[in-house]
């Protein structure tokens, strides 16, 4: 029994010793771990923190979507899509040949070239290599499904122009980095581009995001709504292209403008280009010239409307005043000038414009005088930029009076020794069409940040440059050009119209002579009594006159545009069209009288160029007492309302029977007078 007890005691002691030993081992183990933890987390905390951050945290750049460009009805003309680009870390590629084979098969890139690039990057210890940028969604999906460790994706955006070449000169293009390099894409780049953001993300071993640690939100670019109407733009481009191809013109321009607000409804340039495709040839580059804005030309007889407007304002000449055209010959300061076509004896002031008599225009210009003529040229906005927000706008050329020669007044009176753009011509014609107010062309209606309210673009207040009665008289004179003058081809079925043809000879800098190629132009408006649109068309380098090549474009564009704008007809559509004789359209301005354009270009420009971002004011609408329209015809009401600067809505036809607000009431800005006709 004692032995058994002794054995039990010794066994208990051994157990205790074993437990103590085990506890010591555990303690040593715990101490070792503790020491290691102290070493890792305290002694070398910074180093391992950096390593952990590199492994666990990734910073992603969030691309800001470039703002869309929309037409006036909200149809997209340019928009951006987010796309992915593929890059790799060559140092993590185990087998360059195998990797190139996989990526080349999925992305359609040359495998051997890619393998060589990976090898080179690996040899130079580079940790980044683009494989393919802006891949398609299908390629991205296939590559994502492979889950390759060395492949990384970068988010980018790609610009698309769904309408192709439509309004390409206005909208412009972007480069590979999505920065604007042409058109509005360039001039409004700051507003469109937005601000990229970034996010620092805690990721797991499979690079899946767990937590966003620090984020600066991306600010997408603003969407820009233009005054351009996609449908009208299409019609204008189609007709301009057809005319240029038919008449073998080197280039062409067309502008459609609302004469009251200055809103550009269409702005077309020929030749056109597809902004979705980068330029390949010099011809592609040349097609990117925005002719109606950037390329000035001698306007020719179109400019006679300025001369005659100045005459109506500064002289006692009236539409019926006789003008001695000298039978087609004029001695101007010792130089004998002959009419370009058969001579006229005496023409009325109105017929000088209708028949586009050069000698008649010179005689009128002489009556106006150099100083007054130059004053009105400047009033109409020639010689300075219109301020349209398009890059490389030309101001045209208007020489200072001290640089004029003796015969310069004759040249300027018929549109030589001066250069303008098609946009400037449209602006000048709009001043006549709207009753004498010079309006600044508008291309941008509003801007809108995503999630924000649309902000209307402020418009500059129009400036009166002609008396209303002068403007109305000029409209009637320009209607005469279409009815029985050189612009018969511009007569619209169903609508009255007015305009002026122009044919200026093109100067050849090689031979230093004027050629028999013309800048054929037509600028006009419709309907005459209450113009809804102003259209300026120019075809450069044609062998025919403006009345033959440009007036038909005005007609085909005008008819469709007025229908689209729901403008009521003021003529029966089935009215017979006048007989059209191309010989009657000869309105070539006498070029030999003029200083060559080269010397003109060398001369200093009279006006200083305005900056594109000139400060703009808000529109100030005319306010005044409402006149009485009782018992008057539609035409009389429209003429009187235009003269008074009172906008009217015509309801019905016949004679005015009622109106609201009543006569004598004060018209608030923005308010219109509704006139009921029966």
């Amino acid at each position, binding site marked *: 029994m004692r032995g058994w007890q002794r054995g039990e005691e010794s066994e208990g002691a051994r157990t205790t010793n074993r437990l103590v030993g085990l506890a010591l081992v555990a303690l040593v183990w715990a101490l070792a771990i503790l020491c290691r933890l102290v070493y890792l987390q305290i002694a070398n905390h910074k180093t391992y923190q950096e390593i952990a951050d590199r492994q666990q945290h990734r910073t992603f750049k969030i691309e800001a979507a470039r703002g869309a460009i929309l037409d006036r009805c909200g149809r997209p003309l340019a928009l951006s899509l987010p796309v992915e680009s593929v890059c790799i870390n060559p140092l993590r590629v185990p087998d360059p040949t195998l990797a190139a084979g996989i990526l080349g098969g999925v992305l359609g890139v040359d495998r051997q070239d890619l393998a060589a690039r990976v090898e080179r990057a690996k040899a130079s210890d580079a940790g980044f290599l683009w494989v393919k940028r802006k891949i398609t*969604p299908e390629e991205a999906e296939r590559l994502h499904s492979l889950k390759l460790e060395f492949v990384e994706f970068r988010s980018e955006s790609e610009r698309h122009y769904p309408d192709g070449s439509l309004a390409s000169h206005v909208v412009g293009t972007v480069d590979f980095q999505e920065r604007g390099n042409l058109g509005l894409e360039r001039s409004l780049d700051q507003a469109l581009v937005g601000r990229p953001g970034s996010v620092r993300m805690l990721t797991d071993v499979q690079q899946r995001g767990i*937590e966003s640690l620090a984020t600066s939100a991306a600010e997408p670019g603003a969407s820009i709504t233009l005054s351009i109407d*996609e449908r009208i733009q299409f019609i204008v481009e189609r007709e301009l292209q057809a005319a240029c191809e038919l008449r073998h013109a080197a280039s062409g321009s067309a502008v459609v403008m609302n004469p009251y607000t200055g809103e550009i409804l269409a702005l077309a340039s020929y030749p056109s280009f597809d902004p979705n495709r980068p330029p390949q040839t010099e011809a592609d580059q040349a097609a990117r010239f925005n002719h109606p804005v950037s390329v000035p030309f001698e306007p020719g007889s179109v400019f006679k409307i300025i001369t005659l407007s100045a005459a109506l304002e500064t002289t006692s000449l009236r539409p019926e005043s006789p003008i001695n055209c000298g039978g087609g010959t004029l001695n101007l300061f010792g130089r004998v000038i002959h009419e370009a076509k058969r001579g006229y004896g005496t023409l009325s002031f109105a017929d000088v414009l209708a028949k586009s008599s050069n000698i008649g225009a010179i005689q009128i210009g002489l009556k106006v005088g150099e100083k007054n003529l130059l004053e009105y040229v400047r009033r109409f906005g020639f010689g300075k930029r219109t301020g349209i927000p398009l890059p490389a706008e030309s101001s045209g050329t208007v020489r200072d009076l001290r640089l004029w020669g003796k015969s310069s007044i004759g040249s300027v009176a018929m549109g030589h020794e001066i250069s303008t753009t098609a946009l400037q011509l449209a602006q000048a014609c709009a001043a006549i069409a709207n009753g004498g107010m010079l309006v600044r062309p508008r291309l941008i209606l509003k801007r809108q940040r995503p999630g924000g309210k649309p902000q209307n673009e402020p418009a500059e207040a129009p400036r009166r440059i002609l008396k209303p009665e002068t403007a109305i008289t000029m409209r009637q004179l320009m209607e005469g050009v279409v009815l029985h003058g050189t612009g018969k081809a511009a007569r619209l079925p169903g609508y009255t119209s007015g305009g002026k043809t122009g044919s200026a000879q093109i100067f050849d800098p090689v031979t230093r002579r004027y050629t028999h190629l013309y800048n054929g132009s037509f600028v006009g408006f419709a309907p005459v009594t209450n113009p809804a649109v102003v259209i300026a068309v120019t075809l450069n380098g044609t062998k025919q006159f403006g009345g033959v090549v440009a007036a038909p474009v005005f007609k085909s564009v005008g008819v469709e545009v007025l229908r689209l704008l729901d403008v009521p007809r003021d003529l029966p559509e*089935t009215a017979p069209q006048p007989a059209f004789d191309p010989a009657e359209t000869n309105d070539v301005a006498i070029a030999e009288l003029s200083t060559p354009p080269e010397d003109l270009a060398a001369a200093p420009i009279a006006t200083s160029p305005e900056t594109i971002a000139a400060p703009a004011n808000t529109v100030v609408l005319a306010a005044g007492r409402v006149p009485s329209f009782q018992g008057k015809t539609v035409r009389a009401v429209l003429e009187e309302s235009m003269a008074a600067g009172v906008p009217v809505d015509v309801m019905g036809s016949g004679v005015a029977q009622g109106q609201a607000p009543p006569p004598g009431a004060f018209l608030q800005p923005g308010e219109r007078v509704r006139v009921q006709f029966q």
Partner: protein
Amino acid sequence: MATLAAIFRRPEANAVAAEAQRENWNRQPDPYQLRPLPCEDVYFYCKKVDNSRVVREADPLSRRKCWRAATLSLGAAAFIMILMLPDALGMIAGYQIHSLERERDRLAQECARLELEEATLLSPQRLQQMAQDLRLVDPDPAHVVYLNSGSGALALNAPTK
């Protein structure tokens, strides 16, 4: 079942075996008797022990210690879990947020792509081409009927002559 006592009381077993052997010497050897197998003389047997009447002695102190240890262990485990729960839930939520963000981006991309497709399909050039393919033409002026939009008139089929 052989007990440890049976196994380890070998001397006694050996004595019994020697006595049995001596008895066998006195007998005539059987020429046909087989040689004994090793340890053939060791027998195993079962010993039934009835513990049904054994009653465990009550030990409240040990029980309390036991319960306390169990409770403490569970409490510590629960405490650790509660401490870790926000992080775990945050991680799960992070995965969900990341997944939803990717889904949002994908839907935005899809929306933009569809918008582009719609704009492309509705482009005037395409509509013009389709109209030409279908041989649609502009109506003759005599066949166009203009409705007075202000009078609220309805569209009517115009008789053509």
